[in-house]
């Protein structure tokens, strides 16, 4: 039993990070039909930006702020203006391919300009265990879970409770009508790109101390976030959150109850089953068919 409890906590912690990454992924899809195949690399890069700032002599807190700011400029603003905007009218597939190329570019740039080796990364949460219900639970898991939940709560409050959030949702759901009623759609789309860049920087900050900073770490994470987003519902923020937590827990349970060799297969088979029987995702709305 104790084993199961530990697995659940660890699973929720990883799941919370998947959720952060998946939420950004669905935001970009909703507002600009962008499938970002570089989302995993987007999570990998900010940690290296922070490490670079620290190597230049900045204290940890300053490096974090710089890293988040740079991430919002590079992965939010520059990504939108230089790649997405010129390609948006060409449809989903060429843009998806371009983000694949971007993923290769980011990976190779980090490998070339920083290091091909994995680098340790300081944790913002103190390490150690605390006792909960008689179980020793790692502070890092708790910390990751809490920060991720706060971020997601903050985002959903922004989206559902504020006028800005309502404008963003309107811009995402029906750009034409939103424009007519005076929503600055372009600015709202830019905002979702900046939010995505902030979320990936946060995810980077939370996950890198656990798995080390490595140029190739984006692949696995990106794939997990895709699966989470689709399982939960491609077009729903709450779907992405539920999907993230579900995949995190499933992944951890599979690691100890299914063979370790086929652990990675469990979320994939789950993904295929979900797509076949409920393509819109567990919490998603069905998208109208375009004829």
């Amino acid at each position, binding site marked *: 039993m104790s084993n199961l409890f530990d697995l659940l906590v660890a699973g929720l912690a990883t799941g919370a990070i998947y959720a952060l990454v998946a939420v950004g992924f669905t935001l970009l899809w909703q507002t600009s039909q962008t499938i970002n195949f570089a989302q995993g690399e987007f999570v990998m890069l900010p940690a290296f930006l922070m490490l670079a700032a620290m190597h230049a002599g900045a204290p940890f807190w300053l490096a974090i702020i710089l890293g988040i700011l740079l991430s919002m400029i590079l992965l939010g603003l520059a990504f939108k203006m230089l790649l997405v905007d010129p*390609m948006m009218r060409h449809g989903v597939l060429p843009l998806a*391919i371009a983000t*694949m190329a*971007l993923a290769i570019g980011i990976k*190779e740039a980090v490998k070339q300009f920083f290091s091909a080796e994995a680098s340790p990364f300081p944790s913002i949460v103190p390490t150690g265990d605390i006792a909960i219900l008689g179980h020793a639970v790692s502070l890092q898991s708790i910390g990751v879970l809490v920060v991720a939940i706060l971020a997601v709560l903050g985002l959903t409050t922004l989206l559902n409770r504020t006028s800005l959030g309502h404008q963003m949702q309107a811009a995402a759901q029906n750009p034409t009508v939103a424009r007519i009623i005076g929503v600055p759609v372009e600015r709202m789309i830019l905002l979702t790109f900046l939010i995505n860049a902030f979320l990936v920087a946060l995810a980077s900050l939370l996950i890198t101390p656990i798995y080390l900073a490595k140029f190739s770490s984006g692949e696995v994470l990106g794939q997990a976030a895709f699966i989470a987003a*689709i399982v939960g519902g491609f077009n729903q923020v709450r779907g992405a959150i539920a999907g993230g937590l579900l995949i995190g827990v499933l992944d951890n349970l599979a690691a100890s109850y299914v063979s370790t060799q086929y652990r990675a297969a469990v979320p*994939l088979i789950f993904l*295929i089953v979900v797509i076949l029987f409920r393509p819109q995702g567990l919490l998603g709305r069905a998208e109208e068919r375009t004829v």
Partner: protein
Amino acid sequence: MSGFAKPLKIALGLIVIAGLIVVPMNFNRYGLFILSQWAVMTIAAMGLNLTLGYAGQVSLAQGAFVGIGAYAAAIMTTHGWPLPAAILVAIALSFAVGWVLGYPALRVQHHYLAFVTLAFSTLAFLVFRNESWLTGGIYGISNIPRPHFFGIATNKPLPFYYVCLGSLAIVSLAVWWLIRSPWGRAFMALRENPLRAQSLGIDTRRYTLMAFAIGSALGGVAGALYAPLTQYIDPVPFNLSLSLDLLMMVIVGGAGFYFGPFLGAMIAVLLPEWLRFTEGYYLMLYAVAVMLLLIWSPTGILGILDRYMAARRTKAASALRAVAKSRLETVQ
């Protein structure tokens, strides 16, 4: 078709074919390996171009079929079977698996289909890696023999390059015939508008499955050539990134254009080699080049040519109109 006169096109084609046969005779081992790799990857990309470019079904699993073909060939030839038999088995196997993978396409489209096939690709990789009784696991299969044809051994790089080139020629002719046959027309109808295709009496169900199965079978052929080419296979080359690379080849060359895969594979296989003098920067430059190309022309390289031809035709047509108009005016 285009502004080129037909004899000119045929002459150009013959020159390219003669060049592909004659020029590599002076190449070193490595050059021949790269060129053989180009031929093999072109075959795989042609398969994906059928599925994606002609039938409009997104697949991120072509790399997995190259893997299936490669393992089929490696296992059979190391057990003493001749390569042609192994190629037939690779075709049958990947055709069957591709047919089954087509079923999700009957239910979901576009990005959902992309993710189902992406999942399949990763599952195939796990099987290659974990079923070591069959695939050798992470140690792979080594000493894959190269075939004898009519008593001629193809162990040396040049003869085996001709095996790859010959296979490419056969596949090219088959695909050329296929896309001009009613099947090819049905594929294109499926891509343009599935509902209308169905209302025209095309069995969309069958053709969707066929598009996957035939495209996958060509992936299997490529794999069955890849195994003897490298003479050693392990799971790593057949992971998801091969599927993504093949997709990039098709889009960059020009999806739905017959010659797209040839160009796309050339860029993906040869460009990194040409950029090798830039040391560690070559993949970065490659990525930037792909992004710039897609921003400039989302329909790939052949899309640029196509637009240029269309512009020339419009210009020629309006010139003709102008002449006709002035003549009309003089008559009046």
